């Protein structure tokens, strides 16, 4: 009898602990999901009303004048695209080296570690670094410096995903390419990269999602510009910097525009993440 009761106690206790643990994890998940939903909700509630064609056709206005966000949207797009081109080229090459040539090399371990550090470095430090690197020596804020700063933020993301994706390819595929007489680098370019394409695109999209909302690296580099400009040597408007400026202002219409800008960024990031993940899932099935 005593033996039975102890057994029962043990089962009951284990069950209780299990319920407790599952409950805690569910609560934590709920907190995260609710926070995300609240953010989306407040963005939609405050921003959706201001969305209209004028947002995309008019530049940002002086206080209490009608206007849109065209210069900021196009500026963000230009700097993000240029930054991504730099990040994708460097990141894919670096990730490829880590995955395909770095095996067992001390240098690869160091590079991987530094990349991870860069991955979690505060982006304001990157902004300051590029300020010292490009803005001060060239005596002026510029969109080019902004794009470089964004590239510094996105490169570690692309490097990391590239390495991970390439490692997923089977060694037999590499051997099959070599066994037919192709050299190692040709096998990587013609077979391994092609087999990894959905994953590489995902990495790029995640990198893009990461930088499209970055404000800190731009504050010290591209600065912001209320007028439309495409010149890489001049300061350039961008959504995050405009939001930063407008949201802190005392003017209601500026703050309304800031909400719209925030909504646009959130939607872009959401779309990039969803597309990226869908592509990654597709690649596992093929």
């Amino acid at each position, binding site marked *: 009898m005593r033996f039975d009761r102890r057994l029962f106690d043990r089962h009951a206790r284990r069950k209780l602990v299990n319920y407790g643990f599952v409950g805690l994890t569910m609560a934590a998940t709920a907190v995260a999901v609710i926070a995300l939903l609240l953010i989306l909700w407040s963005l939609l509630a405050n921003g959706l009303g201001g969305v209209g064609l004028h947002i995309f056709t008019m530049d940002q206005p002086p206080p209490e004048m009608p206007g849109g966000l065209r210069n900021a949207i196009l500026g963000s797009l230009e700097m993000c695209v240029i930054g991504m081109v730099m990040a994708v080229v460097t990141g894919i090459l670096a990730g490829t080296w880590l995955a395909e040539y770095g*095996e*067992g090399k001390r240098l690869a371990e160091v590079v991987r570690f530094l990349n991870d550090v860069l991955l979690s470095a505060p982006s304001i430090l990157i902004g300051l670094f590029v300020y010292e690197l490009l803005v001060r020596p060239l005596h002026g804020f510029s969109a080019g410096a902004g794009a470089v700063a964004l590239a510094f933020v996105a490169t570690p993301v692309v490097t990391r995903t590239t390495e991970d994706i390439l490692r997923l390819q*089977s060694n*037999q*595929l*590499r*051997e*099959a*390419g*070599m*066994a*037919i*007489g*192709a*050299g*190692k680098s*040709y096998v990587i370019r*013609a*077979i391994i990269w*092609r*087999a990894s*394409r959905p994953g590489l695109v995902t990495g790029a999209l995640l990198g893009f999602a990461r930088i499209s909302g970055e404000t800190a690296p731009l504050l010290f580099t591209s600065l912001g510009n209320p007028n439309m400009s495409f010149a890489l040597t001049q300061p350039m408007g961008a959504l995050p910097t405009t939001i930063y400026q407008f949201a802190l202002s005392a003017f209601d219409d500026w703050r309304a525009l800031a909400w719209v800008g925030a909504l646009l960024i959130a939607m872009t990031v959401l779309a990039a993440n969803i597309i990226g993940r869908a592509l990654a899932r597709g690649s596992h099935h*093929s």
Partner: protein
Amino acid sequence: MNFDAKQADAASVIVPPPMEQRVLDVRGLDFFYGKHQALFGVDLPVARNKITALIGPSGCGKSTLLRTLNKIYDLYPGQRAEGQILFNGENLLNPREVVENAPPASGTAIQGDNARLRARIGMVFQRPTPFPMSIYENIAFGVRLHRNVSRAQMDEIVETSLTRAALWDEVKDKLDKSGLSLSGGQQQRLCVARGIAVEPEVLLLDEPASALDPLSTAKLETALIELKQSFTIVIVTHNLQQAARISDYTGFMLMGKMVEFRPSGEAFVRPVTAAMRDYVTGRYG
């Protein structure tokens, strides 16, 4: 009975094909994975236009031996082979060595050029490894590495290779579809077609049927027997019936050594070493 049993205790028996029939000749091969030695003085004479099967329990070194023949192990630092792999009048492991009594040169010198070597000794792997491109491009990929051919010539090469691999009828209407869209058995025959499109002299197969169902296996075997007319085949297999069905010579390996190498008919009917007899009758271990 008693006498036979005594004879069967011979440590190793090698009955090689005549010298003049050999296209590839391995002599005294040692192989190392880092400090671990996996092959010990292995001999493997490979006869032209025959199928040579390598059998033996897992870990006996048969795949290792196969992977030295096209030097694919070269990819991995720390793996090395010592001894002689004679092909085309050269020792593949030491291009400078002057070798006598080797299979004569049948093409341009290889001289340590792995691309040239692998154009002449092709390989098919255990799991199908189609490249992530169309069926047509899978075949064309290897051909382009070694030769410049016109579109019309390429079309012809693709058709002949797929026909010889017994796959043409199944894929002729979807050559532009991804090689990955085929079934496992078809993918494996695509890999065979890809290998022979380069017109190698020797084709190495590493357990090519182990991931296939019986029907696909039968198709692959039929294709291999046909291919013997034009190519020399070395196949590693766990399937003894398969080795007995299709091979002309069989090498039985155990713990990194070649224990018995004889014409397949004799070897399977009356293995002379105790080890091989135990293995083929299922009493090994």
